Each structure stands twice: as structure tokens, then as C-alpha cells.
């Protein structure tokens, strides 16, 4: 077993039940690398997950405490939980693109507005893959999926001058980054900064679903084809890459820290108590 897995994960969950060749393991590993680099241990982190491939496959893998929310609601659960945890304890949520940018977007936005201290890792596989491969909010335009047999025609959150990270930035998120799972060190560095950030942080990581999405979009279920496709489109240097490309790195980093939600509420409660006593 990998030393990271041995150190941080529950043996029963290794290997994961993800499809052979799935890119989720790359995302998961990058988060563990970041945690290891920061010198954090199981007691320092409470791990939450959502519904879908990203949530189900990472649920209860963490040796410490784990929870999984219903679809899209884990941000609200985490908001309540934040008030009960010690301020120095970290919360990491591994969720999917549908969970964060679709069904859970309202709660995600309000977690951003409140600046709840949590690090959301959106493991994005271009749609609803655990239900067989329907399009979602990051599915590339024109892509053939089970629910877009004539090509993806629905506007998404990452095209046409529109970026979900921009919406989150406007809502007040303090740290935002985007990466693909084929990246190495720089992605781990972004995750480290996100975890370190006291407040709401989010890292959007695109990873390939070899079984459903790429099976249909590329007509190949060979993992190597999917990884080559993603690699070629991650910060491409060649001019000949047509269509979708991914510009990665830190998207936004706030220069001034906004007060964190639970810190603010604790302070408020203390002030009211003092006022009532005097």
C-alpha cells in the first residue's frame, strides 16, 4: 500500500471501488499529498463528502472523522458543524461537479457568503457519471452524453465568458484554484494554500471518467486516450489544440482576510453575553 494510504486512509477502503482507470484517485492523492506536506494528522481534519462518484468513492476513506451529506447539502451541514468544531480543526469536502455547481450551488454560495472555514475540492468529471453519464454544468459544449445524444446544447458554467469561479469570487470566496488531475506539484501547492486559508476555499479539479464520459465523447474507454486528451488541453502550448482547453493555477487569492463565520459568531455571542452580564 502507498505510504499516504497507509498513513491517512482506512484500509477497508483501499483499493477504492471506482472504475479501473478512473482519474479520481489522482485527485484524492493530491489532497493527501497536500495534507502530508502541511504536517496535518487525522485528528486535525474532519472529512465530508457529497453524492456521486467523487463523494461516494472518497466517503469514509479518511482515518479520522467522516460524514457524507445528501446531494448538494453538505455545505449546509458543514456550516452547522463548523460551529461545533474547534477553530483549528480543518474541514475538507470532496464533492462532484453536479453536487457543487448544480444541486448544491445555492448552499455553496451561502457558505461562501458566510465565509465558512472549509476547503471544497470539486472533483469534476464533466457530468453525472455514476448514473451512467448525463451532461452537467461543466460538460463541454457539443459533447455527446446519455442525455445529450445530439450534443451538449445546454449552457454550462465554464464557457462563453462565464466562469463558476468568477461567481464564487464575486460572492466573496477568499481562495479559488483550478487544475486538472494530470498536473503534479502545482496542483498540490494550490490545495495546500486552500487548506491553509482561514475561510472558504475551493479547488476545482478536472479528472477523466474513462467509463462513461470519455467512452462516449472520445469513442474510447482506454484510459491512456482520456489522459492524453486532458493533458493536451491543460495549459496547451501548441496553437493547434481546437475547442476546449483548461487554464489552470490559482484563480483568485484574496489579499485581505475576511472574518471567518464561526469566529465572527463566537465573538458576537461573547459580546452579547458580556453586555447582558453588565
Amino acid at each position, binding site marked *: 500500500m502507498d505510504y499516504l494510504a497507509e498513513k491517512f486512509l482506512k484500509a477497508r477502503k483501499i483499493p477504492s471501488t471506482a472504475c479501473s482507470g478512473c482519474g479520481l484517485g489522482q485527485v484524492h492523492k493530491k489532497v493527501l499529498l497536500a495534507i502530508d506536506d502541511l504536517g496535518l494528522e487525522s485528528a486535525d481534519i474532519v472529512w465530508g463528502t457529497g453524492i456521486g462518484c467523487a463523494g461516494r468513492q472518497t466517503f469514509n476513506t479518511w482515518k479520522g472523522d467522516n*460524514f457524507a451529506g445528501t446531494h448538494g447539502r453538505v455545505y449546509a451541514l458543514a456550516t*452547522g458543524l463548523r460551529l*461545533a468544531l474547534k477553530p483549528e480543526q480543518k474541514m475538507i469536502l470532496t464533492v462532484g461537479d453536479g453536487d457543487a455547481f448544480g444541486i448544491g450551488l445555492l448552499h455553496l454560495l451561502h457558505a461562501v457568503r458566510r465565509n465558512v472555514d472549509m476547503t471544497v475540492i470539486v472533483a469534476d468529471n464533466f457530468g453525472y457519471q455514476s448514473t451512467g453519464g448525463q451532461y452537467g454544468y461543466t460538460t463541454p459544449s457539443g459533447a455527446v452524453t446519455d442525455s445529450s445524444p445530439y450534443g451538449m446544447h445546454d449552457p454550462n458554467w465554464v464557457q462563453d465568458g462565464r466562469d463558476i469561479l468568477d461567481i464564487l469570487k464575486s460572492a466573496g470566496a477568499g481562495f479559488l484554484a483550478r487544475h486538472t488531475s494530470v498536473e503534479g506539484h502545482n496542483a498540490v501547492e494550490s490545495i495546500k494554500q486552500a487548506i491553509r486559508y482561514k475561510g472558504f476555499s475551493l479547488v476545482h479539479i478536472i479528472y477523466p471518467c474513462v467509463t462513461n464520459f470519455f467512452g462516449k465523447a472520445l469513442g474510447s474507454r482506454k484510459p491512456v486516450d482520456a489522459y492524453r486528451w486532458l493533458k493536451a488541453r491543460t495549459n496547451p502550448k501548441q496553437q493547434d489544440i481546437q475547442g476546449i482547453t483548461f487554464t489552470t493555477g490559482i484563480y483568485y487569492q484574496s489579499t485581505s482576510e475576511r472574518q471567518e463565520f464561526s469566529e465572527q459568531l463566537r465573538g458576537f455571542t461573547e459580546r452579547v453575553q458580556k453586555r447582558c452580564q453588565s
Partner: protein
Amino acid sequence: MKRLFDTGNAAITEAAIFAGCKLFAGYPITPATEIAENMSRRLPQVGGFYVQAEDELAALHICIGGSLGGLKAMTSTSGPGYILFADPYGWALGSEIPVVVVNAQRVGPVSGITGAPGQGEFYLSRYPTHGGNFESIVLAPNSVQEAFQLTVEAFYLAERFRMPITVLADQIVTDGWETLLIPETEAEIQAMGLKVALRQINYGPEFYPATDEIDVPPVVLGHNTGAACSDWTPTAEGFDTEEVEWQHKHAYRLIYKVRNNRSIISQYEEFALEDEPDVIFVAYGSPSRVVKSAVQAAREQGLKVGGIRLVSIWPFPDEVFHRSAKYLSVELNYDGQLVREVQRAVPKGSEVHFLGRCGELPKVLELVEAARTLINGQPLKAIKWEREAW
């Protein structure tokens, strides 16, 4: 003893504070808004947190999240919000997290009339979420004082059964003003029969044991117990599983921890049932106040009439319906909800009738006349609107 003149909403607030509630997340809705307002004022005074949520889905999820970290939590709403609780309510039932939910019922369907009482969530409170394989616990106060006592009780049961408990009130109870006594000394607390359970922590490794026992501590996160709780069917250690055998154990625990401990939950009041009355009224919540007066008025007129008032409505106390009689269910709805359970619970040979009012209480004389009609073996008069051409 602190003696106040206040609303049911105020009583529920003070009960939550009394029971050690430290987190309230809510969304404003008539006729429960005052609970949120009062909690926003009271909680910071006792070191607690008030969070105004973006919707009811978030409200109950935030409460459950706090409870998951060890804070006692409560939320309140009315019908339109209660239906939105379906998602988090199910999560708390399945993950077995204590939380208290107040529903001040107003007349529906949907938004209905905000300031009129209703009893439309009788069955919704039994099945507040999807999927089945669970029992629910629901308490129904009929006065300001009882709203206080049952809310304290709800917090107590939530801890012992590690599940969400609904306090099913109605607009008359929550908006109505009455005398409210709040005990202050240990003797006063005992005299009122109030119990408070402290939050225990489950240190594992079995977070979901296959047992019908209560008093199993819930999962509390943040203590590095290696705990796991989720919406998935859990193994004893909390791992998500697709094995049906674990589903059987999960369902067994959720159903039988309640069924096999019903005696702790069941509460009801009986009016004049000693002489095997001809007609027995059945009601819960504010209509039961009219029923009590009607039983007295009918007795004064020599009619053999009694009454049953349900205080806990789920699990349904079948045992109280052991007499053969003509039952009359009095409810604040026109479709008849409680009456269906009464029909199921009564002995063979009993008659079951229904008298519903929509958005307002029935009158005492109406009930006395209905009892007289049933005793004479005549059919109940139809409500006027049933026959009118619309």
C-alpha cells in the same frame, strides 16, 4: 417559578433554552417566525448560535451539522417549510442524529392562509421523508404551557432515541397567549416532570450496532473517533454498503428502537371514559380544547360522551382505542387524516365518524349536537359547502 403571560412561540423558545439548545437555524415563516426571532435574542445570551438559513433545506441541515458536532439544535417552521425538511429529516433519521423540529401547522394545502390554524401534516409528520423503514416520534401540544413541556420532552427523546423529533403544534397554540410557568428550582422541575439528557459521545468502533436499544450515544464528529455517518446504509462501523443484510439491520434498528420503547413516548389524556360512553371524541392539538369543553357540556345534558386527546401522535397509541363505541375524530382539516388512524385502531364493531373544520375551530355546541345525532343513530349533517354548487 417564573410566571409569564406569553405565546406558544415564546414557550417553545424558553423550553429550548431550558433543554440546553445551543444552535437554532431557521427561515422566517408565519406562524412560527417568533420562535426564530426569540431564539436570535435568547441564544447569544446563553452562549449559543442563531443562524438565518437560505431556505428550510439549509436550516435543518445546519442544525444537524451542529448536532453532529455535539450541539443541541432546533429549528421551527410551518407546513410549507416542513415539506422542505424532507431531505435533512431523512438524513438525521438515517444517520441517527438528535434534533428538534417544530411545526406550527397552518391551513393548507401549499401556502394556504398564513394566520389560520390547520392540521394538515398529521401523516406528513409520520412520513417526513422518503424511503420508509423508520418510525417517527411526534408530540402535539394543545396549550402554551404544554408547548413548553413537550419541547423539553422532545429534546430529551431526541437524545435518548438519537433521532429528529417533531413538535406538531398549530397556529392557535403558537400564536395564542396564555399563562406560562417556567420552573427554576430542582423541586419545581421535578414536579413538572421535566427531564434533560446530556449529549453523549459514541467513541466507536460500533456506531450503528444492530440493536433496538435506546441510549446508544450518537456519532459526534471532531473527536477523532474514526466515526462515519452518511445517507448511505451503514455497516456497524459506519461504512457505506450495498449489502442487503446491513440494510436489514439498519431498518430493524430504526423501526424497533421506537416500537419496542413506545411506553417511554406514549402520552394521551382521557376525558370521562369510565362508564363506557356511547360517543368518544378524538382530537389532538387545539381542537382537543374544544373537545374537552364539549365532553363536559354533553355530560351536563345527560349524554354519555367521552374524549381521547392524543399528546404523542406517532407512534400512534393504538392501545387507547380498546373500547367499542362511536368515535368522532375532530380535526382542523376537511379531508380527514387522524380519522383514518382511528379507523384502523378501534375494535371491530365500532363506528368511526369525522368532523372537520378548515382554518377555524369547531364550536362546543356543534360537537355536542354531533354527539347527540350519533347517539340517536342518525347520520352527521354534511357541512354546507359540500352541497353547494361552486
